[in-house]
């Protein structure tokens, strides 16, 4: 079981019964607390399973040590600090066929954070896109 604070059962979620209730109802938990995390839900499929195993938990694992991936039956649940990025040109190379960012979106089920595409890259970030950071248009030659 992961000890990361981003794990599905981390923090208060590891508690049960009265211990859970005490923390849940504590005064400090009666307002929301700003979070720098992002959550991504990926519907399981042939391509997505490859993206998860071979890229996010494979070649690119070192890029994002805060990333946690958990198996929740029909979907993969991902949580990371800051951002999660998938470059679909890398996925194309892995799969041996053209795989655009819109092919990826076929199985991206939910996002908590600001998700966007730019070219063939999908990003979900904790940054406030459009407020703190400008959303970029595709630059062409």
């Amino acid at each position: 079981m992961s000890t990361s604070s981003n794990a599905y059962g981390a923090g208060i979620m590891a508690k049960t019964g009265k211990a859970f209730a005490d923390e849940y109802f504590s005064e400090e938990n009666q307002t929301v607390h700003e979070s720098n995390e992002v959550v991504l839900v990926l519907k399981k499929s042939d391509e997505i399973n490859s993206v998860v195993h071979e890229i996010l938990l494979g070649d690119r694992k070192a890029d994002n040590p805060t990333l946690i991936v958990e198996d929740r039956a029909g979907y993969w649940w991902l949580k990371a600090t800051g951002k999660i990025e998938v470059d679909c040109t890398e996925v194309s190379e892995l799969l041996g066929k053209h795989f655009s960012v819109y092919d990826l979106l076929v199985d991206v089920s939910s996002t908590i954070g600001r998700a966007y595409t730019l070219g063939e890259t999908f990003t979900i970030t904790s940054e406030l896109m459009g407020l703190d950071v400008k959303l970029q248009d595709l630059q062409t030659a």
Partner: protein
Amino acid sequence: MAISAATKAATDALAVNRAPVSVGAQEVHRWMQSFTWDFEKNRTKYSTKYKMANDTKEQFKLIAKEYARMESVKDERQFGSLQDVLTRVDAANRVHPKWNESMKVISNFLEVGEYNAIAATGMLWDSATAPEQKNGYLGQVLDEIRHTNQCGYINYYFAKQGQDAAGHNDARRTRAIGPLWKGMKRVFSDGFISGDAVECSINLQLVGEACFTNPLIVAVTEWASANGDEMTPTVFLSIETDELRHMANGYQTVVSIANDAAASKYLNTDLNNAFWTQQKYFTPVLGMMFEYGSHFKVEPWVKTWNRWVYEDWGGIWIGRLGKYGVQSPASLRDAKKDAYWAHHDLFMLAYALWPTGFFRLTLPTAEEAEWYEANYPGWYDMYGKVYEEWKARGCEDPNSGFLPLQWFIENNHPIYIDRVSQVPFCPSYCKGASTLRVLEFNGKKHSFSDQWGERMWLSEPERYECQNIFEQYEGRELSEVIAEGHGLRSDGKTLISQPHTNKDGKLWTLDDIKKINCVFSDPLKAL
């Protein structure tokens, strides 16, 4: 011959902004958005008090071609699975009978929400002025049409392929008598399509979709899988692949008004009202469906709520917007109390009123009672003991002559309906955040369960005039109302709803109800 002004404008625009030679979707998208059409004379059904900026972006850069290709792949995979392998392995008959009943409620109700979201996003398309923002809303209109069909298909599939079709087919005919219908219409219909357009967006996109679709459409698939249902994950996770664009639309709605002075004046009130409106129904209903409508439990509902609603939606969406003046919803404390207890309160009332529903309910087994007590200390003394009494009095047996509703009457625990949310509550026997408040307006009494709904009602009482079942059927005998409200199966005598899911158990008929002589009365008349 002189060319028209419109043709000249288009020609001039093309001269400085040449059409892309490539067919790259995002290049085409950028080119199309540069045609900044004039939407100054927009008109919409309900205007908004906010000014939406006209340079707002759409985060996914979609064009119609890519949209259609993407969605057709989703549908191909979904229907391919359903009609091929899942039918071949008789998947619909492998679902636990309790969960089969939950899906009667979840998919039928979500269908109504999706249908109303078509109109909601159409209204937002009318209100926005930025081309990219309009593009995002337009994509959502198309999505909502797809989702309405998908939800309808789930119930059709269960009815055709599975067990106990009554309730999966044509649940809507019971909408006048079922006590859960009107509350659902409040969140899924009125909240999405009536009033200020931006306020509707906050209800639909920022709260309904960014917050509650995660438990309703994502987490539900874990409960479904655990209870043998492979159809719901196949369809619902596909629905949710569109929701991320809707969440982005909701966020961009906020971005578009961030620099408007009205935002600092109204946004926190509108957000709190939307949060309370949505949570008041979703929190108890989803908790009830997950925990009481399943045999195999995934985790306590309060943990699901804490993760998706409090920590993630609260921290990652609302918390991050704090520096732009967005505050933690003032009603959060009461919402958290509801997330712990309100679904237990609601199940008790739903079971007491079971003959008016369109799905079957089951009282917790001894094993489940232990699970509830371990996860919600104090559950047994409040609820478990009462269920033991109801079982001892034969509440499942049509020959017993006992409806749990009688227990509330015998013990002087009147059941009221909250005027704003239309959710039933029993103020003298509950552990959620409900307390009784009664106000009079135009010679009529109105009951409220909380200060947040009461405040909304005080600001526009004419909006909340929906009659509840106690007012509508006062003085009428229950079996007569069930027959009139289409609560019967195709044999014309057996109730759709039943107080058990035992396939060998006897089913209640209209005659069984009639001999109890239960007559509706309006509790507000007694005050």
